[in-house]
């Protein structure tokens, strides 16, 4: 049977498996390799070059060496505010997002009535157009007339000040980010479909309790998704942009507490026309993200379980 198959594919038969795999690997990856060459290499190298120049986005860049980097580190208090806010957001929102998305997915995977409706509802906020969503949120969180504080008002209290005071603003943004977690929930749901029923059955035979089944059957199978979620949310959180931008217009109000790294970078580039400085910020962010991600990749061998049989 094997020899017959090999003789049908003469090219495959003559090649060593290693060579054949390399060729196949490159062939399957070729769209992406071509795409990188066409749409990625030039913009990336260009932005790296800009980071060492004074460049307003249009006129010819002027080489300034490390000046942009030095300025960021030594002479820019906004930069450090943005760094702090961004790290705060990442540190608080990522664990919460993973726990919440996973928990919701588990509940939405339970065979209950109205499963489809529930799933749709949890997905809804991610579908609302940003302009409308920003407006709705702004309205809902308005300290006096907003619907969230309405119950407080009813009992004669003011309620939290949400986005208007430094004590609450960072937490409020974490809350808003968790609100649009629907996509991540879908991801875990897709991952949960991979849990083979026979593993649960086997666990049942062993008399395992639900918690035990969760820890030793469900979690390991979902670790590839957790890994994906963790890595992409580190990248996403460090580039957190859309929500604070549409909610505050990028003012950083109050007390610079909503000024995030990407917002400040965007303002530098497209509002103050310091594209060189913005590029330097981008590359600093790139290096930091890469380091964090590589650490996660390193540890993944210890906790990510691929049922395909390979180590991550």
């Amino acid at each position, binding site marked *: 049977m094997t020899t017959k198959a090999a003789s049908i594919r003469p090219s495959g038969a003559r090649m060593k498996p290693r060579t054949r795999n390399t060729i196949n690997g490159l062939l399957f*990856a070729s769209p992406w390799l071509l795409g990188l060459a066409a749409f990625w290499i030039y913009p990336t190298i260009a932005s790296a070059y800009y980071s060492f120049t004074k460049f307003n986005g249009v006129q010819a860049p002027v080489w300034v060496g490390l000046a942009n980097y030095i300025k960021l580190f030594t002479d820019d208090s906004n930069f450090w505010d943005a760094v702090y806010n961004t790290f705060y957001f990442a540190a608080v929102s990522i664990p919460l997002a993973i726990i919440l998305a996973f928990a919701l997915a588990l509940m939405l995977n339970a065979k209950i009535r109205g499963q489809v409706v529930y799933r749709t509802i949890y997905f809804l906020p991610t579908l609302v157009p940003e*302009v409308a969503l920003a407006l*709705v949120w702004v309205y809902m969180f308005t300290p006096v007339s907003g619907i969230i504080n309405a119950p407080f008002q009813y009992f004669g209290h003011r309620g939290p000040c949400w986005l208007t005071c430094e004590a609450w603003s960072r937490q409020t943004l974490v809350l808003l980010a968790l609100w649009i977690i629907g996509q991540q929930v*879908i991801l875990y749901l*897709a991952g949960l479909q991979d849990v083979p029923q026979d593993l649960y059955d086997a666990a049942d035979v062993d008399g395992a309790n639900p918690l035990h089944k969760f820890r030793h059957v469900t979690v390991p199978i979902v670790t590839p998704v957790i890994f994906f979620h963790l890595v992409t949310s580190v990248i996403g959180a460090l580039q957190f*942009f859309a929500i604070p931008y549409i909610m505050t217009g990028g003012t950083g109000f109050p007390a610079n507490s909503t000024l995030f790294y990407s917002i400040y970078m965007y303002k530098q580039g497209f509002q103050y026309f310091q594209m060189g400085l913005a590029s330097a910020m981008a590359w600093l962010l790139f290096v930091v993200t890469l380091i964090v991600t590589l650490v996660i990749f390193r540890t993944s061998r210890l906790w990510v379980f691929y049922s395909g049989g390979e180590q991550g």
Partner: protein
Amino acid sequence: MTAQPQTAQSSVQPRRTGIKRKQVKKAIRQLLVHLMLIPLALVFMLPFLWMLSTSLKPDTQFYSYPPVWIPNPLQWSNYPDAVTYISFFLYLRNTLTIAVLATIGSLISCSLVAYSLARIPWPGRNFLFIFTVATLMLPFQVTLIPLFVVYSRLGWVNSFLPLIVPHWFGSALYIFLLRQFFMTIPMELSEAARIDGAGELRIYWQVILPLAKAALATVAIFEFIARWRDYLGPLIYLSNQKLYTLSLGIYEYRSQYGAEWGLLMAASVLITLPIILLFFFLQKTFVQGIALTGIKG
């Protein structure tokens, strides 16, 4: 004669109560899940409900204090007005064209690349994988201008090409995502197919893709929504109103000093509905997956 049914009965009895107890347990568990899901569902519904409510409000009730949930009168005319105020159906067609073509391209290209990274043991794949993830780490803000220059040189500006074609060459995020799912499919399945004489393309098409339906559906939903809602891409690359998308059109309800909030919200509801429908349809794949992946290597 009499003893037999008795023994039969006595042996059935405990089993029945066992089933009953199991059913009761199951019912309680379901009830608990409902109890946890319902209040949270209300919270997650709030933005959409408020949008729906506002879409039916006359001009001035938006910020009323105390808040108005059920507008009086219900301004149904916001809906017909919204679709005539801008070229709604033209924008809808453009948005659909871009979203559908980009999604098809992403599904094909990303699954091919992910297959290479997850299923073919070739020497450079780990490096390419990390490299792929790394491309996500450079924020879009600083590559916007050079990327525009690339498309400008290609003569693609002011057409759908920059919004569709790149997606046929793969997206790092979805390559990463599909790779994760492809990795969980037992290698023995591929080995068995290889022994049967299948080439990689056939294994990809006949073995891997059917087993990764849930993941592919996820990518389809994510990419479709991303293109459906994309604002910056159409803003930068399109300068002909006949090519505009809904995400640009929605800004036409705003003006220098004001906005048609009711119309904007009505249009937002209309824009959201097609994706809700898509989601409904694709949900089935999230249930089917179970039966298919019941094979354990």
